[in-house]
């Protein structure tokens, strides 16, 4: 099975190198970095690491970059795609945990859950996540412990059916909704997470979280 790692990245020159090195140390060589209109050295550093760099001319958001990465992987013959964040909060050693159910069980999508093992997660993050999980459940009918996780695995069927049209963070819930529409099988697996001041400042906060939720609701009702 051809496994591709897709990393959407926007101005991640400080962390992309460590993320790529860790992925390569785990034995993965088919890595796609989607440089989402960065104005720093993200693309240059990625190229120096010998990975495939797909360039968004302008910044379109993490959802848009993830979908571009998925399509690039499909073009290059991927059977499985694993997505992970470029800010260093995910550990590439967890990739194998996401891969296993896709390869050995009849699972189409694996979601790396930060809440299925002991991780140090700030209270506000936990709270936002519970709210997002409830909202995602209302929209999709299934409850997940980490509906907003950026670390996911997509098997062949998921690659065929799932299409993300959301540009921003709401893509995570949209992906779950797509999976439910197409009767794909989803499984959550435990992953570790490393929160730093940097990754906390880059993720969703109260304001972006509210916009994400608003967009999700409106998109669902007014399509």
């Amino acid at each position, binding site marked *: 099975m051809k496994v591709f790692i897709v990393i959407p990245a926007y101005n991640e020159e400080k962390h992309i190198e460590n993320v790529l090195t860790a992925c390569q140390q785990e034995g993965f060589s088919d890595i796609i970095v*989607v440089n989402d209109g960065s104005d720093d050295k993200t693309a240059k550093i990625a190229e120096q690491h010998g990975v495939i760099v797909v360039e968004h*001319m302008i910044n379109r*958001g993490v959802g848009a970059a993830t979908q571009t990465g998925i399509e*690039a992987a499909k*073009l290059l013959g991927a059977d499985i795609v694993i997505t992970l964040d470029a800010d260093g909060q995910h550990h590439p050693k967890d990739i194998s945990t996401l891969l296993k159910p896709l390869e050995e069980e009849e699972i189409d999508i694996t979601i790396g859950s930060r809440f299925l093992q002991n991780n140090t997660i700030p209270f506000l993050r936990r709270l936002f996540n519970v709210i997002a999980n409830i909202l995602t459940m209302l*929209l999709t009918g299934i409850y997940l412990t980490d509906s907003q996780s950026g670390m996911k695995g997509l098997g062949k069927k998921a690659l065929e059916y799932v299409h993300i049209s959301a540009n921003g963070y709401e893509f995570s819930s949209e992906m779950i909704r797509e999976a439910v529409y197409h009767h794909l099988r989803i499984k959550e697996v435990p992953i570790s997470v490393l929160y730093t001041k940097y990754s906390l400042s880059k993720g969703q906060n109260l304001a972006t979280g509210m916009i994400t939720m608003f*967009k999700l609701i409106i998109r669902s*009702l*007014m399509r």
Partner: protein
Amino acid sequence: MIGSFSLYQLLVPLFALFMIAKAISRFLRTEQTGRELLIWLLIWSSISLVALFPNATVILFAQITGVKSGINALIFFGLVLLIYGFLQLFIMLENHEKHLTELVRKIALQQLQEHENRHHRR
């Protein structure tokens, strides 16, 4: 007037029926969940009921909200219209954003394809 109904009282439910048919069609094509279909059914059924029985709904509306005078009702409906307009604008903007993303993605994938072709030729 057609019988005891005004023309709009018949046109609005007809339009609502058309919109419900569209929602059912979207549901059957799995573009919409059962939950979303239910929400649209509720919205369009309510609009039809208001059109068919305006007096009964005005009394009910007044009892629930306390909006009794004409000017308050006018402000209320003005607000509803404004919110609707805002949502329509939001959807338009979202659609433009979506098209822009598709364009950016198309260029990105084209560049990747060209890069791969050059690489294979070598």
